[in-house]
């Protein structure tokens, strides 16, 4: 066997090894129930903001503290603590991907990904369709804004 073939095999084996270890360290997408079932484990929680519950955030007191209640599609809810600034479009976000772990009765969140209609205009159109009675939501604010100037 040529030396270069040996090198080839070793490197390919290395690459496969790396990918397998990656799968081992990978986390999972979870609902609130399954996240609570494995406390202390880092998960991606798929949920949305429960707007009937208070959102606590005061940038003056502490810009790095946000708590709120998240609710998932199964109707289960959990209190979430996030030690960072409130993300953009947090309130209007339709879906939140909360990365963190469940601990001591609350979800300690390390990172929040918001899924907003604003970043995804195509999705906005779909929401318009789902809300009966809304007229074209998009041009209206612009027109009123234009009148202002």
């Amino acid at each position, binding site marked *: 066997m040529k030396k270069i073939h040996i090198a080839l095999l070793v490197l390919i084996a290395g690459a496969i090894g790396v990918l397998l270890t990656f799968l081992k360290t990978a986390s*999972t*997408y979870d609902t609130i129930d399954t996240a609570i079932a494995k406390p202390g484990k880092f998960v991606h929680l798929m949920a949305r903001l429960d707007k009937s519950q208070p959102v606590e955030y005061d940038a003056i007191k502490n810009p*790095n503290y946000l708590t709120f209640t998240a609710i998932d599609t199964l109707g289960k809810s959990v209190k979430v603590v996030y030690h960072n600034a409130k993300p953009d479009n947090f309130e209007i976000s339709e879906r939140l991907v909360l990365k963190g772990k469940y601990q001591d009765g609350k979800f300690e969140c390390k990172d929040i990904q918001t899924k907003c209609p604003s970043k995804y205009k195509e999705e906005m159109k779909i929401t318009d369709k789902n809300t009966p009675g809304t007229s074209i939501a998009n*041009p209206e*604010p612009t027109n009123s804004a234009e009148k202002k100037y």
Partner: protein
Amino acid sequence: MDYIGEHLLPGQLGHFFIVLSLVASLVATFCYFRSTQSKIDDESARWKKLARYAFITEVVSVLAIFSILFYIIHNHLFEYHYAWKHSSRSLEFKYMLACFWEGQEGSFLLWSFWHCILGLILIKSSKKWEAPVMTVVSFAQFALATMIAGIYIFNWKMGTNPFILLRDSGVFDNAPALHLNLDVNQPLRPDYMSSIKDGNDLNPLLQNYWMVIHPPVLFLGFASTIVPFAFALAGLWKRIYGEWTKPALPWGLFSAAVLGVGIMMGAMWAYESLTFGGYWAWDPVENASLVPWLVLISGIHTLLIYKHSGHSLRATHLFFILAFGFVLYSTFLTRSGILGESSVHAFTDLGMNFQLLSFLLVFVLPALLLFFRRYKEIPTIQKEENTSSREFWMFIGSLVFFLSAIVIIGKTSLPVFNKIFGTKIAPPEDAEYAYNSIQVYVAIILALLTAVTQYLKYKETGRGYFWKKILTPTILAVILSGLLFAFATINYTKKGPVFLGSIWMAVICSIYTIVANASYIWLGIKGSLRLSGGSIAHVGFGMVLLGILISSSNKEVISNNIGGIPAPLGEGEDPRENLTLVKDVNMDMGKYTITYLGDSAHPKKQLSYYRIHFKSKDGKEEFTLMPNSFVNYKGNEGLMSNPDARHYWNHDVFTYITSISNPDSEQDTAAFRHANLKPGDSLFYSNGFLILQELKRKDSLPVEIFGPGGSLYEAPIKIFSKSGSVYSVTSRLAVAKGEMMSLPDTITSESLVLRLQKVNPDNSIELGVKESNAVMKYITLKAYKFPYINLLWFGVAITAIGIIISMIRRIQLNRLKGSGS
């Protein structure tokens, strides 16, 4: 029905040219194919001529589509969905191009446009390779034309058409106001256009000058990967092995330079306009564009091996096929919506997944099939590479590059994996570290190989020669690394000593690469600029690595929250990286004292600029940064922030707004609480305490204002805040014409309102105290320090220059040989 105010002609022309482009590209593909297959020279030439006419028709059509769509956007013809969705009247001219390629349709058009330009050059320059190479290019043009066709074939929609009218796009389906009798089942009102005054505007995050220039460059990079691919395929197809590498090499180099620069322009855009705090986040979209580049670089190196030693032709074929394959795969990943959760900036699903997947498979499967069928025919050299030869180590380097690309794309493809196998695997806790922890070793190996390999000769290197040549640069690199080790630190300790050690190792190897390759320009090729392309590119590559390593590992958050009240913290290290600035109040941040001075608004958009004054504590410099933010833009609650940075030669101070005081909540809901105080008494409030100094009464007052017996009380109050600040106010109460009047005093920075309400007979006062956030204007910001970021940008430029020098030399060599034979 006729509608008032519509301009239908551009759209009709557009539709016509789309169909023409579809037909012309198909005809061109067919004719080039026949020309390639034909054994008779005459016949082949006739087909070729026909094919050229077809391709030129295709070029004209694409240019026409391009111009018409731009005309529609430029003239604000909002009856067209594309203009309505992506542009607005307030959009500056420079961003009209940016909004042109914001949508899928426009970016496909851009890609198609570059294929046209490349195709024309290929027709002019590639001589006997024209027919097979252009078959591939024309077919790609056909595939791209289907993406914007928007034609229904038995209920299945092929592509999305950029010329679709707003009223046909389904946007009005739930807008009764625009229909007759306010009923959505009725037709539209003929004058519906009078209600469509403006479009949706370009996504604010894309309103950045990099978005004008980055997509065209990136797409030129993507588009040009088809050329080496087509040459490799042409070689297999015509069974003329190896010869195709000559014309393919300059194309490969061109593609590598342009794609590399395009990717890094995207990184600059991310750095300057996104707020994830950096230029690279291993986001799937970034990875998907990086991977073809890595594979392309592998291909270029194996091609050079083949040129000089006859080895590695098979690998070159594979790499060029896969480089283009990964371009198509990344197209699929980023446009199909499959990335969903895992990417911040992917396109949304337009229901074209099947088509995108076909686009990938229709090129990659036949190419790979042809490659494996011809595999045995591709010439190789049986003799083993000598381990002292340049080709041996170059091959190892190419392989490491390629495998690192495979690892990156493997990790990025997690959502695809989930989709196929129904699993629910998510990226790990620290997704960036998952990449960094591996790629740092790739960097070490590659930097080392890049440093050393140029000093090896092809075929075989004498020991004496090698050591003699490499001695000086090695000593130099050791000295430099030693100096760096002694005088600089790398602060990235959060991942433990092993990773820190790896970073150091990679830093040293990058320095070695820079020094060794720079020296080689004199030691190896005697300072000849013409020959030094490779070395210059390698120096640039070393600088890129060094810039990445230092700027990322010494990146520092300087906006640590020290002003606010510490909140109850969870276990572990929680990010406390945002700092709140109250208007006009100085705050400490790193070596600066910073003050929020106020904001100013954009005249046309809901865009605010925040003036933040920086003053270094040693008093040596002062400057103002103006990060901006779209506030509640187009009815979207919240902020979309664009950072601002202060550039120094050796670091950047980078800041952006994370939250602002809500202008809507300015209604004051807090109430006064009352306290009785005597002079010298103190009173606590939530953020400190205050002391009533004394109470003064003034009697000799003008009677015409105060009436008889009027009086004025003055109560000087000192306020001691927790933060150490001391404020003095004087509250006043006037008794005039039998009425008591007092004005509240506001201490903005303490969100404190005081009012002297009553003076009691026993010389005590009743003081009203109110604490309210509404009195404060504040912003919360995040600030980073990025050291040596310029090294990265500079390195990218040097790499590109080096590659271009090589490319020019290769073109010249090809010309010389061409005229000689």
